[in-house]
């Protein structure tokens, strides 16, 4: 309570001192975003990021245009509840593969993060990739960091208006194409293209193209680092996956401090200076606007732009590279050589992640390879358990939900086993078109006295007539009245 009384009594206690104290001022408790103008950077890591931009975007924009068996190669048909991925067709019953895919993704994230921090964030995350594309467009139109800052500070002029509107038009074009491509994964993209041209888009197609386009434009053009800082949960729990041997982008303070500007000809040791020339390039290139020299921060997305930036300066100064570099906490504290640092990558955590990841990937691949394009569900009739037919035979009725998950038409044969004299009383074969389902009603008979009163185990075997390997065994119950 003391603290509260203090705070209450403070203004009242010093009426005399008020004269030379500033007036009470209204402060906003919310922070206005200050635009960050990341400077263009070239180098080894920037090259990698661009390679990944090309790779991910060629895959994203290109895939919907591929065809396979006279249909779109990758198509998520939500209305028909079927996902086509090249030769595979996934039905809602295959949700396990989606689960496995998500588990694999999560485990990969853990593995990569344990080895080298936020690799995903820095190189492959759509937020980074699209921001990189949008930044490139911005630089092509408005110029680099200094030119952009100058333009933003200048009053509105015809030139400024022209530049800004060109930039936004280019951004919107990319964003709309992205939205169109995204929806093209759910509606066949060639058909969608025709719909756009003839303006016959459905309301939901229009909505999702605009929504996804707006999200691209807003996130990559306007929000940028705000997404990583205030929306993405990953930034907040990454530290749980870091350890002292995780490679992170670090400023070597021992080597760099005390920092200070100096001429290229001066020997820094004589002046009592470290290697950091305090040029500020590492801050200028940072897309999240932080100073890496203050140590690892949650805002750092691990893009290594500061590494490339600093290396350029070190080259120019004639110092050795790597004042800012990928290294580990142990590496810095114990002055480990790069070889020793790399040797520590193979530590239990990494090995366990790798082992689980590999085991799961192999299991999933095996499951996929052995997948049978036929599913059968046996549903017993509930209204009547059993009935007596000619010559005292007992008859049960079942509904077999047969799903032909392949894309070609097939004939299937139904057989029953498990009880002496058990036989079908309905035609044993039926034909199903590709990717269709049919509820086949079958009657099964057993001769009198061959089965126990009550429930008896039996089995349905459904097999394709053209392919021995396509066969499903389903267990069921045959009821005999007491």
């Amino acid at each position, binding site marked *: 309570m003391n603290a509260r009384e203090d705070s209450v009594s403070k203004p009242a206690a010093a009426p005399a001192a008020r004269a030379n*104290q500033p007036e009470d*001022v209204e*402060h906003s408790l919310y922070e206005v975003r200050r635009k960050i103008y990341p400077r263009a950077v070239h180098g080894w890591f920037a090259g990698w990021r661009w390679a990944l931009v090309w790779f991910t975007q060629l895959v994203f924009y290109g895939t919907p245009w591929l065809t396979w068996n006279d249909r779109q190669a990758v198509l998520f048909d939500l209305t028909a509840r079927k996902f086509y991925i090249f030769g595979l067709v996934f039905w809602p019953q295959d949700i396990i593969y989606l689960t496995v895919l998500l588990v694999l993704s999560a485990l990969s994230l853990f593995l990569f993060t344990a080895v080298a921090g936020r690799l995903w964030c820095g190189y492959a995350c759509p937020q980074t990739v699209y921001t990189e594309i949008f930044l490139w467009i911005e630089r092509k139109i408005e110029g680099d960091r200094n030119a952009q800052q100058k333009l933003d500070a200048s009053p509105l002029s015809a030139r400024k208006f022209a530049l800004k509107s060109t930039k936004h038009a280019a951004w919107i074009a990319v964003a709309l194409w992205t939205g169109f491509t995204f929806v093209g994964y759910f509606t066949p993209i060639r058909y969608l293209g025709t719909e756009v041209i003839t303006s016959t888009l459905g309301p939901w197609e229009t909505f999702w193209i605009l929504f996804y386009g707006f999200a691209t434009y807003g996130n990559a053009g306007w929000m940028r680092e705000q997404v990583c800082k205030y929306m993405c949960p990953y930034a907040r729990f990454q530290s749980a996956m870091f350890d002292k041997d995780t490679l992170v982008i670090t400023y070597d303070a021992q080597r760099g401090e005390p920092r200070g500007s100096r001429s290229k000809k001066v020997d820094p040791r004589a002046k009592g200076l470290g290697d950091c020339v305090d040029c500020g390039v590492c801050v200028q290139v940072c897309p999240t606007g932080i100073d890496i020299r203050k140590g690892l921060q949650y805002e750092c997305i691990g893009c290594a732009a500061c590494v490339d930036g600093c290396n350029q300066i070190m080259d120019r100064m004639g110092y050795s590279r790597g004042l800012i570099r990928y290294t580990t906490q142990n590496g810095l504290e114990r002055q480990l050589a790069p070889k020793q640092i790399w040797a520590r990558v193979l530590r239990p955590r990494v090995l366990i992640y790798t082992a689980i990841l590999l085991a799961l990937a192999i299991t999933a691949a095996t499951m996929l390879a052995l997948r049978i394009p036929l599913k059968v569900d046996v549903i017993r009739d509930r209204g009547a358990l059993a009935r007596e037919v000619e010559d005292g035979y007992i*008859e049960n*009725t079942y509904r077999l939900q047969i799903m032909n998950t392949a894309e070609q038409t097939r004939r299937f044969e139904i057989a029953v086993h498990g009880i002496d004299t058990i036989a079908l009383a*309905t035609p044993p074969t039926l034909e199903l078109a590709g990717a269709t389902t049919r509820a086949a009603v079958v009657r099964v008979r057993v001769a009198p006295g061959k089965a126990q009163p009550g429930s008896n185990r039996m089995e349905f075997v459904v097999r394709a007539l053209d392919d021995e390997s396509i066969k499903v065994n389903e267990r069921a119950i045959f009821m005999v009245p007491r």
Partner: protein
Amino acid sequence: MADFVNDVVSLYIAIITIVSIVACGVLLWAMSSMRTSGTSVETTGHAWDENLAEFNNPLPRWWLWLFWITIAFSFVYLALYPGLGSFKGVLGWSQAAQYDEEMKQADATVGPIFQKYAAMPVEQVAGDPAARAIGERLFLNYCASCHGSDARGAKGFPNLADADSLYGNTPEAIKTSIADGRSGVMPPLGAAIGNDDNILDVAHYVLSLSQSNHEPARADRGKEKFALCAACHGADGKGNPQLGAPNLTDKVWLYGSGADAIVTAIKQGRNNRMPAHKDFLGDAKVHMLAAYVWSLSRNP
């Protein structure tokens, strides 16, 4: 509106809702800025447990706008849609109306298919494989829970796949059964026939009609009393499809065969009902189902 006992409750809820939203806005406004004498805000001014203070780590300003947008959204939503007490909203949206709208759209899609078949006579529809597939799916959905997936029925639920039919195996009779339902009543006749022995005699006579296992002596005695049954089942026991009275000369038994089942029927009567489906399914689906059911006894 049934959710509220009376208008006062509705008003009470509406006031609470509005006051809560306004309070959120007031709180947001009050907490968005602060007066201090310094150049910046160090802590929010609260101190707990003597010295535990909350530092000011400013939220991004666009969050503030998100908060305001949600508040504005809630007012717009409450004005357009039901949510404020019993106020129905300007748009007049309701779940029932949405359901009707979606059903209308579905009918517009599948309607023409049904219309095509509705214009054809039942016999012709029954011969169309596509119509048969539709009929089968409809049957599995609406009829199979009582009559079985294979339409062969169960005790008390007639077999639809045989040629025997209580009300006549004609397309019209089947259609009437589905559309308007049937009420099959056999009155209890035990007292009118006599004592238990007399009843058993009649039961054996009934069994003799279908050459089922019976005692000829009892059957002879029961023949005279059968006159009472003949009113509905006919003097020859062949039944009457006008009344739904079963044919007793065949071996089709709706409630099971044997003297016991017949004795029970005489003593207690039988009361059975097929519900009407006309309002629920509509004429077009009834037509399709009639064709499917009619086809069952022809191409098993």
